[in-house]
C-alpha cells in the first residue's frame, strides 16, 4: 500500500482539477459536476485517513458528505432546469440579474 502522502497528492490534484473546471467552464451543469469532483477528492482523502488511523469516523463522514452531495445535486439540478426553462440556456455568465 502506498503511504498516506500519496493519497494527499492525489486528492490535491483532483481537487485542483475540480477548481480549474469550475473556473474554465460556463455550463452550469458542468460546474456542478466539477463540484462533485472536488467533493470526491475530499471523500477519498477522508477514507485514506480513516484507513491510516484505523478509525471508521472518517468513513462515516464520507457517507454524510455523499448525503449532502446527493441533496445538493437534487436541488441544484432542479434550479438549473428552471433556469433553462426561463432563459433557454444553462450558461452561468448570463446569470447576472443580481447586478440590478
Amino acid at each position, binding site marked *: 500500500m502506498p503511504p498516506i502522502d500519496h493519497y494527499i497528492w492525489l486528492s490535491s490534484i483532483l481537487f485542483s482539477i475540480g*477548481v480549474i473546471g*469550475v*473556473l474554465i467552464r*460556463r455550463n452550469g451543469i458542468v460546474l456542478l459536476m466539477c463540484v462533485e469532483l472536488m467533493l470526491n477528492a475530499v471523500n477519498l482523502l477522508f477514507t485514506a485517513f480513516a484507513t491510516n488511523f484505523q478509525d471508521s469516523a472518517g468513513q462515516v463522514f464520507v457517507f454524510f458528505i455523499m448525503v449532502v452531495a446527493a441533496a445538493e445535486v437534487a436541488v441544484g439540478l432542479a434550479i438549473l432546469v428552471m433556469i433553462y426553462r426561463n432563459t433557454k440556456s444553462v450558461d*452561468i*455568465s448570463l*446569470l*447576472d*440579474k*443580481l*447586478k*440590478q
Partner: protein
Amino acid sequence: MGSYIAIALFSPLLGFTISGLFGRFLPKNVTGIIASLSVFVSFVCSIMLFNHLHNGGDAVKLETFNWIAAGNISIDFSFLADKLSVWMMMIITGVGFLIHIYSMGYMHHDEGFYKFFAYLNLFIFSMLTLVLGANYVIMFFGWEGVGLCSYLLIGFWYANKEYGYAARKAFIMNRIGDLGLLLGIFMLFNVFGTTDYQTVFSSAGTANSATIELICILLFVGAVGKSAQIPLFTWLPDAMAGPTPVSALIHAATMVTAGIYLVARSSVFFVSSELASTIVLVVGLVTAVVAATIGLKQNDIKKVLAYSTVSQLGYMFVALGVGAYSTALFHVTTHAFFKALLFLGSGSVIHAMSGEQDIRFMGGLSKKLKITHFTFLLGTLAIAGVPPLAGFFSKDEILAKAFYGNGILVFILLAVTSVITAVYMFRLYFLTFHGEFRGTEEQKHHLHESPSTMTIPLIILAILSCVGGGLGLSSLFSHHHFADTFLSSVLTNANIPHPSHLFEIVVLVVSVVLLAIIILMTRSYYTKKQNVPTSADEETGFGRILSKKYYFDEIYKTLIQKPIEWLSNFAHDFIDRKFIDGIVNISGRGVTVCGNYLRRVQTGNVEFYLLAMVVGVIAFLIIYQLV
C-alpha cells in the same frame, strides 16, 4: 400523613384539568359536582391533617424533588403542613367548598360555566400551594398563581371592557407588591442561603437586625399588594367586577388573607423588627379608617362590602403590627365566615334583582328573600361586632391587644372605625331589605328566593358566623383561647399584657350600647324617614370626598400615571424619534453611501465571483504558509 398533603393539593388540580379540558363536553351539573367534590376532598384532607396536629402530631413535611438546582441555589419542591398552614387550609377549603356549591346555583345560566369552575379549582390549588409551600419560593409560586386566577376571575366577563380594565388593574397592583415580595425573598436567600422556612426561622437570630428590618419591609410590601392596604388598595373595590362568588372567595375569604398569612408566617422576623412592625401597624390603621369612611358613602352593594373588607384587613394588620399574630389569624377566620356570608348574600340579592347592584334601587327585600335576609342580618350583626356573634370576639380581642400593646390613640381610632363599620353595614342592611321597593316593576315582579344550592351555603356560613367566635370564646374568662393555644407553637406572639376582666366587660357593655344606638339611628334614618342616598356627583362637602373615595384614583392618576405618560411621550418624541432614530438613520445613510461605491464590485457575474473566491483562498493559503 404526607399523602394527605399531596391529595389535598392535587385534587383541585385534577378538578381544574377535568373541567378545563373536558368541561365543554360535560353537562353543567357534572362539571360543578366534580369541581366541588375535588375541593371537598381537599377539605377532608385538611381535617385529617388538623386532627393529626391537634392531637399533638408533628408538622408534616412532603418532600418531592429538587426543583431548582443551579450553582449554590437549591430549592426543593416540598410542602409543609404545620399548624398555621393547616389553619389556613381549613378556611380555604371549607369556605371554598361552600362557595363552589353556591356557584353551581349562581352561575347556572352562564355560558362559561365550566371555565368558571376550572378557574375556581385552579385558584384553590394555587392558594393551597401558597399556604403549604415549605419555602418562600413555593409560596411565591402559589402567590403568583393566586394573582393569575384573580386576574382571570375578575375579568371573567371579559366582553365588558370595564371589567377587563378592573382585572388588569388588580394584576398590575398585585405585581407592584410582588416585586417587593420577590426582593424580600432574594434578600432572604442572600442572607440565609436558603428560603426553606424551618432553616430560615431557626437561624433568624444570626442575621443583622437592620437586614431583617429591610426584609420585613419588603415582605410587607408584597402583603400590602395582595391584601389591599394603602396605598395599593384601589384594585379590590374594582375587583367586584367578577362574579359574586369570586368576590366572596377571593376578595373576602381567602386571597386577600395571603398577606396576613405571609406576615404571620414571618412572625419570627417581624417580632424582632420594631420599625417594620410600626409600619405594619400604621398602614393597617390608616387603611382601616380610610376604607371604613369610604364605605359610608358607597351605593353599590358589593362596593360597600369591598371597602368593609379592606377596612377589616386593616384591622388584621393592626393586630399583626401590635404583634398579636394569633389574634390576626383569629380575625381572619371569623372574617372569612361572615364576609363570605355577606358577599354570598349580596350575590343572592343581585341574583334576585336580575343583576342590579345599586342599593338605591332596592329596599323591602326582606319579605321576598326570607333566608337571604335572615342570614344577611346575621352577617351584618357579626361584622358589626354584636356579642355573642363571631365578629365581636375577634374585633374585641384586637382592640384589647391594641390598647395594651400600643396605647390609647390606636385604640380610639380602631373603636371609631368599629362604630363606622356598624353604621355603614346597617345602612346597607336597611336600605336593601327594609322600606319600600325602589326598583322597576319588572324587577319587583321577578323577585324570588334563590335555589337551595345557594341558600344552603348561606345557612351554613350563617351558623359559622354565629358560633365561629367560639374559637376565641374563652378569652373572656381565661387568657388563652383555642386559636391562641393551637397556633402558639408556630407563631411568635409579642409579649402583650393580657387585658383585665374589667376592660373586657367595659368594652362589652359599651359596644352593646353603642350598637343598639347605631341600629336605631340607621333604622330611623333609612327605613322610617325613607332617606335614599344621592349619587356621588350630587354629594357636597366631606360626603363628596368620601363618595369619591378620597380621590385616590384621581391622585394616582395625577401623581403616577400623568408623569409616566409625560415621560413616555418625552421618550417617544425626543429620545426615540430624534436621538435613537437619528443614529439609526445616520448609520443607514452611511451604509447606503458606502454601498453606492462598493456595489461596483458586485458585477453580478458568477464566473467573476468564482474566480475571486479561488484567488482569495490562494491568497489566504499563501499568507498562512508565510506566517
